[in-house]
C-alpha cells in the first residue's frame, strides 16, 4: 500500500473522531524529554541548507577519522558536491539498481531510454555530436580517446598533453597505450604564439590533449588551439569537467574532435575510488571508431518511439579483435545518476554550482595570500582547485590541520599543497579553514 501523507483537514477529521483537539494529546503519557524536539527552522530553506543545518547539529557524531564535506579541502579529481535527495531516490530505484547489464537490450526500454537521455543531455552540455553510454571513469575515457586518435594516424606515435594532467590519469593512459608504442610529451604553458608551443612540430603528433580545468584547477584558454592542431593534421582531444562546461565555453565550440571527462561531480558520491563515470564524446565523423555502447532512438513496427543499442558493429561481440575497444566496462547506474543530477539541477542550478567553484577558490586565494607562509604560484581563473606553496613542509601542515578537524589538501610536493573548494563550503567554512591555516603557519615546527 502506498504511503499517504496527512493534510490539515485529514488531521482535523481524525482528531474529531478521536474526540481530541490537539495531536500532542496523543503523546501525553510519554516522558516529555523523549519527545521529538522542535527545530525552529526558518521558512523558505533550500534542501541543501536544511541538510547542512542538521549535519551541524550532528557535529562530533561523524565516524572516527572521517570529515564532513565542509571540513574537507581534498579534491585531486574527485569532489564533494551537494547531491539532491531526488538523485539518490532515482538512482536507488530497484528497477534500475538491481538489474545487471541488459543482454537482451531492447527488452529493457527504461534502461535504454535513461542512457539515451544521458547521452543527449551530456552532448548538449559539451556541445558535441555524440556521447556514448559511458566508460569506467575519466582516466580510462581519456586513455580510450588516445588509442582512438592513434588509430586514425597509425604512422604517428606521439601525443602532446597541454596543461597539468592528474598523475593517476597519466599512469593509466601510459598503461593503455604501451603496446602501441605511444610517446607522451607534456607542455604546461601552451598559449598559442608562445615560443614553447610554436616550436613544436605538430605534424609528428597524432593528437593533442588539452586539459582544462587542469590538475591544479587552472582554466586554460583554448581559443585558436584547434586550428593549429588541425593544421598539423592531429586530432584535438579536450579533457574537461562537466560542471566547468556549465559556465565556460564547452569544448565542442572550441573545435574539439574528442572530449572526455570524469562524470563524478554529477551527483555521484566520493566513495573509496569508485564507482565513477567516464564521459566520452566525439564528432560524428569519428563515430565508427568510437569505443563503448550507444543507445539510439527509433520506431517500433507500430510506429511508436522506442530505443535500441545501435552501431553495435563497432563492438567486440561483433567485430571481435577488430572492435574499437575490447574493454566493455561501462557505468550504466552512474550514468543514470548523472542524468538525474542534470535533470534536477537544470542549467541554472549547474551554473550556480560552477560559479561557486570559481568564487570559492578566488575568495580563498585572496585571503590566503594575506597569511604569512603561503603563496599562490599561478594567476588567472581557477576552478575548484588551487595549488599553494608553503614555507613549512606540506606534510606537516596537512597533519596539523587534521588535528584541528580538517582534511586539508593533497601534498603534491615537499612544499606544495593542492586545496579544493566547491559549493559545499560556505563562507564560514572557508573562514574557519583559513584561521586553522594561519595557526598552523605561525606555530613552531615540531622538532624531529
Amino acid at each position, binding site marked *: 500500500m502506498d504511503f499517504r501523507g496527512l493534510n490539515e483537514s485529514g488531521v482535523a477529521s481524525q482528531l474529531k473522531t478521536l474526540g481530541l483537539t490537539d495531536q500532542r494529546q496523543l503523546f501525553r503519557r510519554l516522558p516529555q524529554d523523549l519527545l521529538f524536539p522542535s527545530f525552529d527552522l526558518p521558512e523558505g530553506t533550500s534542501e541543501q541548507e536544511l541538510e547542512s543545518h542538521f549535519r551541524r547539529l550532528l557535529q562530533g557524531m561523524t565516524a572516527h577519522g572521517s570529515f564532513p564535506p565542509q571540513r574537507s579541502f581534498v579534491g585531486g579529481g574527485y569532489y564533494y558536491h551537494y547531491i539532491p535527495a531526488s538523485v539518490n531516490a532515482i538512482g536507488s530505484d530497484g528497477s534500475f539498481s538491481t538489474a545487471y547489464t541488459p543482454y537482451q537490450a531492447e527488452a529493457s526500454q527504461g534502461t535504454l531510454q535513461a542512457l539515451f537521455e544521458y547521452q543527449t543531455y551530456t552532448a548538449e552540455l559539451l556541445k558535441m555530436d555524440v556521447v556514448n553510454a559511458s566508460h569506467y571513469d575519466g582516466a580510462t575515457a581519456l586513455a580510450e580517446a588516445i588509442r582512438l586518435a592513434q588509430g586514425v594516424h597509425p604512422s604517428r606515435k606521439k601525443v602532446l598533453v597541454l596543461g597539468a594532467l592528474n598523475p593517476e590519469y597519466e599512469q593509466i593512459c601510459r598503461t593503455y597505450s604501451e603496446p602501441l608504442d605511444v610517446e607522451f610529451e607534456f607542455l604546461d604553458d601552451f598559449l598559442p604564439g608562445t615560443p614553447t608551443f610554436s616550436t613544436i612540430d605538430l605534424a609528428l603528433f597524432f593528437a593533442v590533449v588539452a586539459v582544462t580545468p587542469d590538475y591544479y584547477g587552472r582554466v586554460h584558454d583554448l581559443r585558436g588551439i584547434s586550428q593549429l592542431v588541425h593544421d598539423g593534421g592531429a586530432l584535438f582531444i579536450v579533457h574537461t569537467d562537466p560542471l566547468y562546461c556549465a559556465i565556460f565555453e564547452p569544448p565542442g565550440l572550441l573545435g574539439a574532435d574528442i572530449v572526455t571527462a570524469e562524470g563524478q561531480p554529477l551527483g555521484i558520491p566520493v566513495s573509496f575510488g569508485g564507482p565513477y563515470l567516464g564521459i566520452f564524446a566525439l564528432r560524428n565523423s569519428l563515430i565508427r571508431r568510437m569505443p563503448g555502447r550507444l543507445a539510439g532512438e527509433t520506431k517500433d513496427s507500430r510506429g511508436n518511439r522506442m530505443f535500441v543499442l545501435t552501431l553495435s558493429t563497432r563492438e567486440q561481440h*561483433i567485430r571481435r579483435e577488430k572492435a574499437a575497444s575490447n574493454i566493455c566496462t561501462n557505468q550504466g547506474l552512474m550514468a543514470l545518476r548523472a542524468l538525474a543530477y542534470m535533470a534536477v539541477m537544470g542549467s541554472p542550478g549547474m551554473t550556480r554550482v560552477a560559479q561557486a567553484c570559481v568564487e570559492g577558490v578566488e575568495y580563498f586565494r585572496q585571503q590566503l595570500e594575506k597569511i604569512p607562509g603561503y603563496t599562490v604560484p599561478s594567476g588567472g581563473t581557477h576552478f575548484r582547485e588551487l595549488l599553494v606553496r608553503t614555507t613549512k613542509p606540506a606534510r606537516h601542515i596537512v597533519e596539523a590541520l587534521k588535528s584541528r578537524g580538517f582534511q586539508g589538501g593533497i601534498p603534491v610536493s615537499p612544499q606544495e599543497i593542492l586545496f579544493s573548494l566547491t559549493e559545499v563550503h560556505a563562507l564560514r567554512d572557508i573562514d574557519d579553514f583559513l584561521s586553522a591555516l594561519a595557526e598552523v603557519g605561525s606555530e613552531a615546527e615540531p622538532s624531529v
Partner: protein
Amino acid sequence: MEYKDNVRYQDSHEWARIEGDVAVIGISDYAQDSLGDVVFVEFPDLGKNLTKGQAFGVVESVKAASDVFMPMTGEIIEINVLLKDNPEKINQDPFGDGWIMKVKISQPDEYDTLMSAADYQEYVKGLD
C-alpha cells in the same frame, strides 16, 4: 542468385572486372545476400597500394561487419562515393551501381587465378 560472367571471383566473395589497366571491385550477389542489409562501407584511402589478399575495407550490415579483401594487387584510384549515402546499392545491384572501388592493377596475370562464374557457383554450392 546471380553469377555474372563478365567478372571473376575469389573465395572470400569479392569480384573483379577488368577495364583496360583498371579493375573494378565489388562483392558478389551471394555475399550481399548472406550479409543482409548493408548499412555502411568503410573505404581505403585513395592512392593506397595493396596486394591481393589484403583487407581493403569493411562492409557492415545489420548483422555483421566483414572485412573485404583485394582480389588483385594495385593502387586504389577511385571509390564509389554513391555508397556513402546509399550503401543499400550493394544489395540492390552488387555488380552494377554497388561496385566498391577501382584499382590500377600492377599484376594483370592475377585475373587468371580468380574463379569463373561457373567455378564460383560450384564453390558456393559447396558452402551451403
